[in-house]
């Protein structure tokens, strides 16, 4: 069976007066079986939201390069023209709950109207208004909201309620894939837990989720697989056990080391150096200025996809058995 989602060589660069911002720079990954979740983890500004927008072809005016293929259930949706893509892919097959879902509800639309609006706008929709309302009300109930929410305006909802309305809205066309961009970053811990539980339930029902967050601990709670993103590229991708148990990339190790632990004598470490400027990226491995175990080859050659001992894919020369030989060759030249 073809994977639910397959992304190949995705690029999204922005034009900027200070230079091209390489926000997504050759990202490839796969979300295999239905009902699984892939976590997209990385520091702020590493291009996670840009990757989500690129998958949905939501390109700002200053897009400098947009490239790559997105396959859904074995169909290359990137080949569709813009109008067809808008009508048949967005929200229907692949629903994005954007970052800042707190403000993603229209302030002058009641919840009920907002929920059903995407269905009503499609002219082809032969769905009865009554049936549509029943379905939408059912979704509100499904995400744990009281039926009175139907008539409320967004400013009358709490942050958690808004996030639920967004999720209910994203489910209106029963998409195969839900992309959640930082779904809980503005919520307090208890509400965050409620949303996570809701997502787990949805996942158990067969929904595939791409979960974008800067919080690796939160991602590990729900995700079967994790992709660690650094400066517009994937550094390491594998099962949650592999990434958390035997991280293969020095950046992942640092990232895990920076999580504060309860009753731990050691203070959480922070990653030295500043997050890279996507306009002026370091040569070779993008992490080399901050890496604690760099090799001589690192500043010179961009790492290729390698298999770590624990089985995950990693982009780091440390895992290349011939790396010393390569390094020697370079010195020879």
């Amino acid at each position, binding site marked *: 069976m073809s994977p639910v989602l397959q992304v190949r060589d995705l690029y999204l660069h922005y034009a900027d007066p200070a230079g091209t911002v390489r926000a997504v720079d050759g990202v490839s990954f796969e979300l295999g079986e239905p009902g699984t979740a892939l976590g997209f983890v990385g520091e702020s500004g590493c291009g996670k939201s840009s990757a989500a927008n690129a998958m*949905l072809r*939501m390109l700002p*005016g200053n897009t400098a390069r947009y490239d790559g293929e997105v396959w859904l259930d074995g169909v290359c949706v990137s080949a569709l023209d813009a109008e067809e893509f*808008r*009508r048949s*892919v*967005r*929200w*229907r097959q692949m*629903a*994005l709950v*954007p970052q*800042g*879902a*707190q*403000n*993603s*509800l*229209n*302030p*002058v*639309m009641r919840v009920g109207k907002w929920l059903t*609006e*995407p269905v009503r*706008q*499609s002219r082809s929709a032969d769905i009865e208004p009554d049936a549509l309302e029943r379905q939408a009300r059912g979704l509100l*109930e*499904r*995400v*744990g*909201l*009281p039926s*009175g*929410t139907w*008539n*409320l305006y967004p400013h*009358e*909802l*709490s942050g*958690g*309620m808004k996030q639920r309305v*967004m999720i209910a*809205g994203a489910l209106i066309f029963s998409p195969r894939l839900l992309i959640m961009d930082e779904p809980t970053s503005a919520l307090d811990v208890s*509400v965050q837990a*409620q949303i996570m*539980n*809701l997502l787990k*339930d949805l996942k158990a029902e067969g929904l595939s989720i791409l979960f974008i967050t800067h919080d690796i601990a939160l991602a590990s709670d729900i995700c079967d697989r994790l992709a660690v993103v650094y400066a517009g590229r994937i550094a390491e991708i594998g099962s949650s056990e592999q990434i958390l148990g035997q991280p293969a990339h020095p950046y992942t190790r640092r990232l895990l080391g920076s999580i504060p632990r309860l009753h731990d004598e050691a203070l959480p470490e922070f990653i030295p150096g500043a997050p890279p400027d996507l306009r002026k990226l370091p040569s070779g491995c993008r992490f080399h200025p901050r890496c604690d175990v760099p090799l001589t080859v690192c500043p010179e050659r961009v790492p290729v996809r390698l298999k770590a001992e624990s089985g995950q894919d990693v982009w780091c020369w440390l895992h290349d058995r011939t790396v010393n030989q390569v390094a020697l060759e370079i010195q020879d030249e």
Partner: protein
Amino acid sequence: MTASTEVFEEVLVADQADQDDRFYYASQWSLIWWRFRRHRVAMVSTVLLLLLYLLAVLPGFFSPYLPSTRFESYQEAPPVRLHWMDKSSEGGGFIGPHYYGYEKTLNKETFKYEFEPILDNPIRLRLFAPGSEYTIVGDWTSTIHFFGTDVEEPPPFMLFGADRLGRDLLSRTLYGARISLSIGLIGVALSLILGVILGGISGYFGGLIDEVIQRLIDFLISIPQIPLWMALSAALPRDWPVLKTYFAITIILSILGWTGLARVVRGKLLSLREEDYAMAAKAAGTGESRIIFKHLLPGFTSHLIVTVTLAVPTMILAETALSFLGLGIQPPAVSWGTLLQDAQDIVAIAQHPHQLIPAAWVMAAVLLFNNVGDGLRDAADPYSDH
């Protein structure tokens, strides 16, 4: 599971909603209406404005004569006074609303005609009296007027006096209101359509198309208005029928009027399209035009309504100015502007100040619109206290 354990926050909100249902569920529009109703001046102005438009819709019924009816011997007669108490020599008591005919005499010293009421012959007025036939709309005619008299061949009752040709100024003002007040509305409606579409495209898409529309607006604004209007309306053929001239003038006025509205719409959309909810609508597969008109525009309709209300008086003034200069509506059609043409001569005004009465109507209409607009602005402002 999740749904049942975490309803506490929702219950809280639901409780609040029950307590103050009316306010809590109130739509933006009911909130605006509640605040507007408490704005005295604006409310009174709204009622008066509606009355004014009622007069303008049914000028035939409210005016005693046709605008073209001439009373040869009453040229430039001053306003006839309305009386309640009998002024004749033997009378003196209350006899209801009535007036007295004029006797016209030539003053031998100044060589001017003078009008003196003939006090021994009161002519009683009554409501819904028969008079000359007028058309209401299309082929539908009537002879019943709002007020009139049953007396056979009465002297004319000219509450605002007569113009140079002896026509009733009240009737002419009411018929003029039809053109002057409707041109304001239709002109602004046209400007609104142009402004929303062009401003919407400009603000939402940005880039080159925005640049082009903005330069066009700059160009239109940089041309001095009055000369441009004059040039355009001077280009209209004189022999066009009234209706055609009327629409041509309306279009000329809105060609310049849309620029302001387009700027408002563009400015709003420029900021709103960056809002998360516009992005979310896009992520939901909503088309561009639907995002503009269904998702973003409703966010500032109240703002637009205020702008539009405040734009109407400008239109009315513009029409008046054009017609006053003889470039707008052409006689025999009547608008407030053409009526004021009679008041162009300072000597005429000094001798017959009643010729300025149409100007008072223009001022009243403009002030009323401004009051309503101010009231709406206050009511639509979410930060004004309620």
